[in-house]
């Protein structure tokens, strides 16, 4: 790991450094200062940031397969949710006899459904070691089975995307069923403890936040290591011209399969860290819309940059919180002096329109607009644009010959 970090480029080092600083700083500022202090980070902010960071891990995982291997997975939300369910099952078993029905073995919903025994799928989840293995194993096995079939039969492009979407859709339907054994519609919630500590307490939240952001740094370092290796070069070649790589004698499907499984496991970890911080996991996490939203994080930040993916997740999710919280509602009031001069009810209609767009409902439209604008005008994302400009300016300043290939060679 140490070795990998020293091999990172300046952007990577800055990112990992920032992660470590935040991982220390946020818990300190959340727990130590006085509540009225300017440096105090309130608990809800910690929880919110933790949620964003989990999404950022998912974005990095997605960027690994989409940005570097050209696999546009519209089903990565499924791996995220599966990891989350594995964690949720551990947390459910930790509730023990403190549930509504006070059954020491069975979670409440099973008692409610009149089940007498713990289903096999739930065995062992009272030990975190087992749950931890499952967090990696379940998404990994699903990704392996799916990728095995899909990549060997050379399902690519939009076909693959649609099939991944169908996969997460099928899982959503399955998890909605009560008899599937994972809480049905309501999912898993009412968690009490994690490793014996209260899952709601400020200290636990701060610790979970730190764990999340360190996991983000870890995911980044691992992904960077993969894409900078010889293996990673082949991945990029597959992305750019799959058949050419195949004709050169590479087993393309094996390359794709490995990176797909690794990415799915990362998504699983993200989901596992997400669940204790939001306190619930239910089948709506499998919604195809969630997976596509994750893709837009990567697109906004810049695909094929890893750091950009994480950045995109943070920017888009912060915007979502800001806009759905009515962060731009003041625009309507600002327009009023002008609108009042308009004849008839035109002013009122415009006001209503502006209010709808800036209000909580407007987020859907804003997100849609973001999809269109980013794909049309920002194909490399924010970070891609920034790096391009930086590269463009570099030769003029230093007159160094062809910095871009040189950078790739030593990274």
């Amino acid at each position: 790991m140490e070795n990998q970090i020293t091999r990172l480029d300046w952007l990577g080092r800055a990112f990992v450094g920032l992660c470590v600083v935040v991982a220390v700083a946020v818990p300190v500022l959340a727990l130590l200062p006085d509540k009225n202090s300017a440096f105090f980070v309130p608990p809800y902010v910690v929880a919110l940031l933790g949620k964003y960071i989990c999404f950022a891990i998912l974005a990095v995982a997605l960027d690994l397969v989409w940005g570097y291997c050209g696999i546009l997975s519209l089903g990565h939300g499924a791996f995220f949710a599966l990891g989350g369910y594995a964690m949720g099952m551990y947390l459910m078993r930790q509730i023990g006899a403190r549930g509504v029905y006070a059954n020491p073995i069975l979670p409440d919903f099973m008692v409610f459904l009149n089940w007498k025994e713990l289903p096999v799928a739930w065995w062992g989840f009272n030990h975190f070691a087992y749950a931890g293995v499952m967090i990696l194993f379940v998404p990994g096995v699903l990704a392996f089975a799916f990728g095995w079939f899909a990549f060997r039969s050379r399902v690519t492009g939009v076909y693959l995307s649609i099939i991944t979407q169908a996969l997460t859709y099928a899982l959503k339907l399955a998890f909605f069923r009560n008899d599937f054994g994972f809480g049905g519609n309501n999912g898993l919630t009412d968690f009490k403890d994690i490793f014996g500590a209260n899952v709601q307490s400020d200290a636990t939240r701060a610790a979970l936040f730190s764990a999340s952001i360190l996991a983000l740094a870890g995911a980044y370092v691992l992904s960077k290591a993969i894409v900078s290796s010889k293996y990673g070069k082949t991945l990029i070649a597959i992305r750019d011209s799959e058949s050419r790589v195949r004709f050169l004698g590479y087993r393309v499907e094996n390359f794709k399969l490995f990176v797909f499984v690794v990415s799915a496991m990362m998504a699983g970890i993200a989901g596992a860290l997400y669940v204790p911080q939001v306190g619930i996991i239910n089948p709506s996490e499998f919604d195809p819309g969630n997976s596509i939203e994750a893709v837009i994080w990567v697109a906004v930040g810049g695909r094929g940059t890893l750091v950009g993916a994480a950045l995109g997740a943070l920017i888009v999710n912060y915007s979502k919180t800001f806009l759905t919280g009515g962060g731009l509602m003041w625009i309507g009031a600002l327009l009023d002096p002008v609108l009042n001069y308009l004849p008839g009810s035109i002013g009122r209609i415009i006001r209503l329109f502006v209010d709808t767009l800036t209000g909580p409902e407007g987020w859907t439209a804003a997100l849609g607009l973001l999809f269109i604008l980013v794909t049309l005008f920002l194909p490399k994302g924010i970070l891609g644009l920034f790096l391009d400009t930086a590269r463009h300016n570099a030769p003029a300043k230093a007159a160094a010959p062809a910095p871009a290939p040189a950078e790739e060679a030593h990274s």
Partner: protein
Amino acid sequence: MIRRWLALLIFVVSASLAYADGLDDTLARFQQDKFPETAKAIAELAVSGAPNAAVLLDALGDNRLFIDAGAHQLVYKTASGDVFNAKTNEKLPGVDDSNLKKVRVNNSLRSAIDAAIGSLSLANPDVGKRIGAAEAVFKSRDAKALPAVEAALARETDPRAKAALEFARGAILVTNSSSPLADRLAAISTLKARADQDSASLLGEVIDKADNPELKAAAQSALVSVKSNLALWNLVQNLWYGVSASSVLLLAAIGLAITFGVMGVINMAHGEMVMLGAYATFVVQSLLPPSWSQWSLAISLPVAFAVSACVGMLIERFVIRFLYGRPLETLLATWGVSLILQQAVRTLFGANNRQVTAPAFMSGSFPLGGLEIGSGRLWIIALAILVFVALQLVLRMTSFGLRMRAVTQNRRMASAMGISTDLIDMFAFALGSGIAGIAGVALSQIDNVSPNLGQGYIIDSFMVVVLGGVGNLWGTLLGAVVLGLANKLLEPIIGAVLAKILLLVCIILFIQKRPRGLFALKGRAVEA
């Protein structure tokens, strides 16, 4: 001809003369106003065949039958208070109310009146009413109705009404343990011929109660045959549901197949084109005057096509055109379009479901054998076939279709031959979207018209395209039929959700074998 009419007239007149004397006696019984006599009178009236029997019984039940003490005659009042002579049905003006004495009824008489009215409707001139009455007797299997049923059976000429009466008679006989064994055995074979859920439960009851081994055995063998018959009809019914689901899938997917085939891009906003079509139907329906409501759907079809096609054309011009050669980005951008369209519709029309009513000829259902066929579904199937045929004609017979097929098969070669692929893209996208709009008109009849309407169909439509391939429309048809039938046949066995999951898994496995669907384009290109 005239002789036949004359004969009929004579028959009617003599028949009315025949019961005229009987009616006098019956009315005299009412005039005595004693419960046993009234009961007899009710029973006589029920079988008399008198034209005003139903009116009199109705009046009796409502306490509107009176004895006119002054004129010694029976009269009845209508609900509005006019007084009529019970025998001659003539209006009696200026009857003194103080002279009228009510014919008293008690509860047991009331139930006798109800039964009598029921058996009277067995003689109703309307065939539908007679069948309804016979069905009611079949369900109640009241032994007291047997004479009325047998009387009705003797004079019944309509074959369907006759069958219904036979069933009613069978149901009475078979459940009545005092009826002769031969009759009960015959009744069992009648019920066996009926072969529906009601006769199955009736036979089950007979088996439970039967004291006679011969009867029990007969009922058991009849039940087996009824059950296998029912299972068969059930299968046919599910097949019908499957065909119906296939037609919906075909309508929703065929536009997607066109755009995907021609341009190689997946339009994630396709479901929203369907949604726009459904809302266009709603708008057309609310703008039309009520007298035109029969035509609302016929008018909606071109309107929905035009609306969705225009929106589709705009999307192609302003978004997709610039993403040429980047199918994955197109997928994302059109997803964005779908979000915006959903929000726009939600802002304009509200998030609640909108009501689109079906014209009279499309609502309701009719039985066909053991099938229940919804008229609306039938029209949707017809529409799907029509759209399919029309599209095939456009693709095969027009120069636009020729160009479109050329671009589908080899874009660069088509371009080299002087086809403006840019224009073809635009019109193909408009066409595909317009057909989605037509699908929206159909879906507005069977689904809730809400901003989320399209999302429910989009994944299924994709599956149809993935299964059928983009080579030609027959693939789409086959894909839709296979998915629709498989879904509806699996549903009763393993439930709707599991059926869907199983199908998705099957499709994922299927594309292992045929990654480009059932009808793939044949060519030498390594990659599509």
